[in-house]
């Protein structure tokens, strides 16, 4: 049995090789396409990053450092970090809950929820900011009530956090829904039959299985939370040293013709982007390795792949005779 099956996989392997030879494009097509793609990436992705670095240091290291240690810059960095520190955990929790509900339960309004999660991707960030102003602004629905209680949302940190929450909502959930769905609930049910409580099941079984996907979602969420401009710009009011986040601070400096300072701050965001990309690559590698293992598991479970020690003598039979 195993022998026959190895035989077929051998055949399909040959097939794949033949097809790749047939499908192979002429050399000039491959070279042109590769050149275009790489050129495009350099022109629009790498070059701007280099320019940011060059401009940031154009007036010397001293100007660069003073631009970063300026009180307004420090306050902007602090606000950005605070926002991310609130938004990333909150959206990780929301994302987990939403993804869990969608992947594990069939309920009325499930597809609506899936659509709603994507809403922040579909709406322009500026509109998102304006919606918050309409709801929480002084003339908005809750604005006057809130201001009676002494809570100011718009032109203040809560507004910035809310706007960022809204914009970065989809990242974690989007990442987890397909992951949870593909893993099914067998392992979780298994843990329950073995006597695990809901929390034990979640922390010992579910979480370890989705950890890389979750981390990936959090990284993307964090990158966007620190870099978000449009929605935050509307609700922040650009009060220097108070409600400016790092991206807003960059804009303010740029509008003031302080190019070197603007690019010095921008270089921080660029570094964040590079760091995020780096992490993303590492996590993606982990994710794909997990997926490979899972796929291999599935193949072994269906008995299609002999594992070491399991091979029958016949599995070597289809080898081509040596001449």
């Amino acid at each position, binding site marked *: *049995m*195993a022998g026959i*099956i190895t035989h077929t996989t051998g055949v399909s392997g040959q097939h794949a090789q033949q097809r790749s030879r047939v499908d192979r494009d002429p050399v000039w097509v491959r070279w042109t396409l590769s050149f275009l793609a790489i050129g495009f990436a350099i022109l629009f992705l790498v070059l701007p990053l280099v320019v940011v670095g060059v401009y940031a240091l154009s007036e010397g290291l001293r100007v660069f450092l003073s631009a970063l240690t300026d009180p307004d810059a420090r306050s902007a960095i602090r606000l950005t970090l605070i926002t991310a520190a609130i938004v990333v955990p909150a959206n990780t929790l929301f994302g987990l809950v939403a993804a869990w509900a969608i992947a594990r339960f069939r309920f009325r309004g499930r597809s609506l929820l899936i659509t709603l999660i994507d809403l922040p991707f579909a709406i322009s960030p500026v509109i998102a900011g304006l919606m918050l102003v309409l709801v929480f602004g002084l003339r908005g629905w809750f604005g006057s009530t809130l201001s009676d209680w002494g809570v100011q949302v718009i032109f203040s940190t809560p507004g910035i956090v809310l706007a960022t929450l809204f914009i970065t909502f989809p990242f974690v959930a989007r990442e987890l829904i397909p992951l949870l769905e593909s893993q099914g609930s*067998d*392992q979780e*049910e*298994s*843990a*329950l*039959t*073995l*006597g*695990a*409580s809901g929390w*034990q099941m979640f922390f*010992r*079984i579910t979480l*370890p*299985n989705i950890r890389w996907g979750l981390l990936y979602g959090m990284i993307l969420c964090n990158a966007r939370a620190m870099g978000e401009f449009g929605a935050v710009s509307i609700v922040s009011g650009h009060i220097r040293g108070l409600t400016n986040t790092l991206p807003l601070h960059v804009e303010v400096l740029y509008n003031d013709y302080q190019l070197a300072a603007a690019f010095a701050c921008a270089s921080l965001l660029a570094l964040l982007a590079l760091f995020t990309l780096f992490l993303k690559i590492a996590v993606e590698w982990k994710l794909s390795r997990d997926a490979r*293992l*899972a796929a*291999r*598991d*599935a193949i*072994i*479970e*269906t*008995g299609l792949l*002999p*594992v070491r*020690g*399991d091979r*029958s003598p016949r599995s070597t039979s289809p080898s081509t005779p040596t001449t």
Partner: protein
Amino acid sequence: MSIEALNITKRFGQFVALDDVSLHVRSGELLALLGPSGSGKTTLLRVIAGLELPDEGDVRFDGESVRDRHVRKRGVGFVFQHYALFRHMTVLENVAFGLRVKPRHERPRRAEIHDRVGELLRLVHLDGLAGRYPHELSGGQRQRVALARALAVRPRVLLLDEPFGALDAKVRAELRDWLRRLHEEIQLTSVFVTHDQDEALEVADRVVVMNRGKIEQIGTPEEVFHSPASAFVMDFLGQSNRFHGRVPGNSARQESISYVRPHEFELLKPSQSTRSIDATGSGDQLESMGVTGEIRKIYSASALVRIELSAADGRLVHVQISQEEFQRLAPSVGQTWTARPRRIRVFAADYQI
């Protein structure tokens, strides 16, 4: 421990998975739930385990209702079809899981857990593999890890969902024998789900044949095989030839179906019977005269020789004879022979495939 399922009904939307099913599993027996896919067998198993809540009915362990008891408190060992091993844990951690999640005052000490795991791995013949991860094991080994993991918490009943469904034929036969021996050793009330009749008939003490959310028959393997209670059971268990006709002597001219198993034919030279009937004849005629036709194919490379006979109306009749019989009669392809049934089972034609 005995298990009782009383008048269980379970619906998924419009689909009725279980329709007023009652079942009694005796203490210490190995019971098979056998049926085609969609017959409700897995749902029944999951209801017993507490993984599904029945819409109606009650589940009792040793006479005590466990309907409202959460799955983690029921004390069932459940082996999933695809084993559901924890991928990020070693074999040892998998087997120890049920012990490690116990509340602190019930949790055995570390050394005890290791002893218990070692003992279980010996029981399932996996000693020495404790440090492996599931992806480093073969299908059969994974299956046994799943079993050891389920047994670790000393369950009161063992429930297995298609335990050998995902394995290749040879490993499957080995594990089947092994499960039988294991059950004799540990004497734990066990229920397993299968769609493979050989598996059910060979391994189980009693077999429950299910179809469309209902139980068709409960009995020992001999009972369900030799005295099927319905046309469905007859059809589902083993190969059989169907002949349509009327129930002889029934004035209501009720349509009936006659079944003859391939091995219940005897092969005769056509000259020995004067007349013959076609495959649509009634059970009565069938018994006295048999079916005459030309041999289309002979498969002799097995314990029993399988012969395909093409009847007058073109339908194929399957006949099985022993190798000795085959040597003696020496039938060959193209010759005309008569297959006369030694035994016919007639059911009213209320069942359609």
